[in-house]
């Protein structure tokens, strides 16, 4: 576990120094960080608790809309609206989970798609609340401590902070009692119940945490884009991207979602000219290859091999 904290500190250091080294590539880096953060947050529910959600764009949208509508319609500073979005996301996740956690496996996944689609339709049609199908512009933002929130540098550090928080949360969870409860529920709900775990309550906590963290990223995303459209931010494809990033990297691992984001956003940049708008092709090919050849993901598969080797050695020695 100590190793993980050392890697974490090293990566944060690299992240802090990055804008000085490559000031021209900030937008790509921000996208990368946001996806890494969302995928890590998704993984709390999808990987550690084993409930594959394809509705996480709802939480991105919730965070983004709180910030955008808050600043442009009601002149509330983004730090307050982000806090409100976190609370709202937790409440939403609680209600959502209460409603659908009795569904198992693929049925749960289908229900998340349906709920997220309903949210997208609401965001498009309820103009009085959300600005309607045309979306919301963020024209002005307050300047805390003289920082320009529109500048790429500030966006970058916000995104970096977001990833650091989510990864740290997952690291803490992975060795806590809660983390073991999550894994127990994922592996076998009946056995988990037999050992005194309440699966629904554990899954609800995971969903609330996952949703709130995703909404945090959504708020930062809104500031980064400064223009949000319901078609895109609430769309199924965003949910799919978030989920696939985590799954390709490796579900239920600390670094898997980040590695997945690096791989996908990186290859997206490399093939940007080749595929133009068909960038989701990479997701499609990668997920098929990963599921068939490395079912535990790019990080999960070698990690499992290493762990087995350690145990094998211990058993021999």
């Amino acid at each position, binding site marked *: 576990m100590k190793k993980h904290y050392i890697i974490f500190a090293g990566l944060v250091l690299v992240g802090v120094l990055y804008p000085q080294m490559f000031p021209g590539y900030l937008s790509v880096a921000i996208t990368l960080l946001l996806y890494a953060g969302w995928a890590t947050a998704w993984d709390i529910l999808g990987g550690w608790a084993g409930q594959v959600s394809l509705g996480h764009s709802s939480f991105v949208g919730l965070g983004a809309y709180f910030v955008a509508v808050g600043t442009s319609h009601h002149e509330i500073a983004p730090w307050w609206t982000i806090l409100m979005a976190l609370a709202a996301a937790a409440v939403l996740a609680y209600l959502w989970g209460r409603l659908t956690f009795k569904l198992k496996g693929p049925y749960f996944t289908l229900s998340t798609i*349906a709920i997220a689609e309903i949210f997208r*339709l609401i965001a498009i049609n309820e103009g009085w609340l959300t600005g309607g199908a045309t979306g919301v512009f963020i024209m002005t933002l307050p300047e805390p401590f003289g920082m320009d929130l529109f500048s790429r540098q500030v966006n970058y550090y916000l995104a970096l902070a977001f990833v650091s928080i989510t990864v740290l949360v997952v690291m803490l969870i992975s060795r806590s009692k809660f983390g073991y409860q999550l894994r127990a529920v994922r592996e076998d709900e009946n056995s988990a119940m037999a050992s005194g775990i309440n699966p629904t309550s554990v899954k609800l906590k995971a969903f609330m945490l996952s949703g709130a963290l995703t909404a945090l990223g959504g708020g930062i995303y809104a500031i980064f884009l400064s223009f949000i459209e319901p078609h895109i931010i609430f769309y*199924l494809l965003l949910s799919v991207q978030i989920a696939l990033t985590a799954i390709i990297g490796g579900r239920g691992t600390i670094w898997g979602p980040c590695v997945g984001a690096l791989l996908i956003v990186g290859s997206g940049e490399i093939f940007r000219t080749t595929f*133009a708008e*068909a960038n*989701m092709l990479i997701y499609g090919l990668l997920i098929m290859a990963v*599921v068939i050849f490395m*079912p535990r993901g790019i990080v999960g598969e070698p990690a499992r091999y290493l762990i087995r080797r350690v145990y094998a050695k211990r058993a021999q020695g």
Partner: protein
Amino acid sequence: MFDYVSFLQNLSNGVLIGGVYALIGVGLTLVFGVMKIINFAHGDFVILGMYCAVLLNSLLGWDPYLSLLVAMPLGFLAGAMLQRLVLSRLMEAPPESSLLVTLGLALVIGNILLLTFGAEPKSVNVSYASNTVALGEVSFSMILLLAGLATMVVIAGLYTVLNHTELGRAIRATADNRLGAELVGINTRWIESVVFGIGMALAVMAGVVLIPLLFATPTFSGAIFTLKAFVVTVLGGLGNMGAAIAGGLLLGVVEVMGASYLTSDYRDAYGLLVFLLVLLLRPEGLFGKTVKRV
């Protein structure tokens, strides 16, 4: 006063559209029944059918219904190959794996179509597109009638195959009990290829039948059809063919009725709401057998 003519008009439109939804749903539910695979690429197979008709129409000037003769066998072969090459590797894997692989497949199909045909919507113009058949004061769109007719023919054919042929018996046996079917000498791998081929051929057919009515867009509409297919199958109960037909008709009627009597902004939401309600209250489907769950 209650307007009976417009009510009947809406009802008939709903039933006809529902027929096409049923066609899409039957393929999905057949695949689920036999292979226990949730096929996320099903909607993209529909889109593939649409583009097949568009291509044949623009190159050779074929009528969409003529292109069925090419599109359906091609769809069958492609489906059987996909099963053999990709999905058969996942029979032992957890159920999520097949969901994820077919989701990947959906993205690949959609984006390859995007690269080949471009993003702008495409359609096929037929001379009879705006023709209607009147029955009293209620009029039926010619295209929808043809679509409904084609659906009925195909579903009747499928029903005959499943219930009155040796192949159908083998398919039903595989769906009921894979191991048992293997023990009596059924080649279940072969049956699975055939079933996935049939599923894909049905989806392709729905696409071809719909093209005079709708525009084909490469990436966005695939997901919508997949979602509709799921709504249809879950309404009826996954793996049950007759129920999928009823589910399709129900979805069509609910959508059209909701759009005309409530508000059309939420047209797609009505189906989803009913879908959620059914999932939560009766996960075995409206028409599925109630099974005691352990």
